[in-house]
């Protein structure tokens, strides 16, 4: 068969080799860590929430106690405790489930809860704070804040 002199065959093997090398390099250097973030809303200066003055809003307070337990209670706009505080021991295996069930119960019984404040102490590890924040973040309409020491 006489080939038309204007036709030529492209040898694809070098292109495939080059692309395979590029893919191998990029796969090795790519970072596959699924980074995310948990955000908190901080009060600035004398910021006040105008809504609070009109509605009876409640906030969940989570107080950490030297890495051994955490106390969960409700407070109203005047920083007065509402109801009883509940305690969860951090060393217990079911700590996450206990915390989740307490928060679910509070949110169900008090739909006017709109914020949550975490009050860790100096020895509280970030992991404990993040676990509680994670549970609170699953509730869509709750703003989470962290209180400095």
């Amino acid at each position, binding site marked *: *068969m006489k080939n038309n002199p204007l036709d030529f065959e492209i040898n*694809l*093997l070098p*292109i*495939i080799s080059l*692309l*395979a090398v*590029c*893919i191998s390099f*990029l*796969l090795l*250097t*790519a*970072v596959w*860590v*699924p*980074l*995310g*973030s*948990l*955000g*908190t*809303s*901080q*009060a*600035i*200066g004398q910021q006040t929430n105008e809504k609070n003055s009109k509605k009876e809003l409640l906030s969940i307070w989570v107080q*950490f106690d030297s890495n051994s337990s955490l106390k969960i209670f409700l407070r109203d706009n005047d920083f007065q405790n509402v109801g009883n505080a509940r305690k969860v021991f951090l060393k217990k295996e079911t700590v996450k489930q206990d915390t989740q069930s307490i928060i679910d119960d509070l949110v169900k019984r008090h739909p006017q809860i709109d914020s949550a404040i975490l009050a*860790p*102490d*100096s*020895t*509280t*590890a*970030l*992991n404990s*704070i*993040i*676990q509680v*924040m*994670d549970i609170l*973040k*699953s509730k869509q309409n709750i703003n989470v804040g*962290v209180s*400095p*020491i």
Partner: protein
Amino acid sequence: MKSIIRQYETDSLIRQSEMLRPERKVSVLRSLASSPILTPLVDVFAILVIYLLIHSVTPNSITEFDKDMKLPHAVNGKSIDPGFVVQIKNHGLFIDDKRVSKNQLIEKLQAYSDNNKTKGEKSRLTIMTDQGTPFSDLSPLVEECSLHGIEEVQFAVIRSPQS
């Protein structure tokens, strides 16, 4: 016009190799073996390379952090929008991998906050630190954010699937 069989016969790789060893005769079946179609393979490889290039070049993604740093895990973590990133390692504050003092951090926070105010953008701080870091290391940073008008403080986490 040549028959299809004839056409494939002459284009076959196996048939072409016959040229190196002209004494060997190739059977009809072997002469019908066609060369593999490489075009789709090249297309797939090209798409993979383009995707990986875009993924590696995407801005606003924190990809460099200490390998020894174990970030906490969270199920409800959102996609990260870095803003001002501060790393806390060995009780020290690091910005862009350089250790800074508290005063230097305050200056940079103030400059960042003022810059964003003039642009009308929201200021946010991202804290990257090991999951075992005590809150005593984080508290001054959280306090400075409130004092300098940074409304949103984000903690960098690794998103884990729901258990």
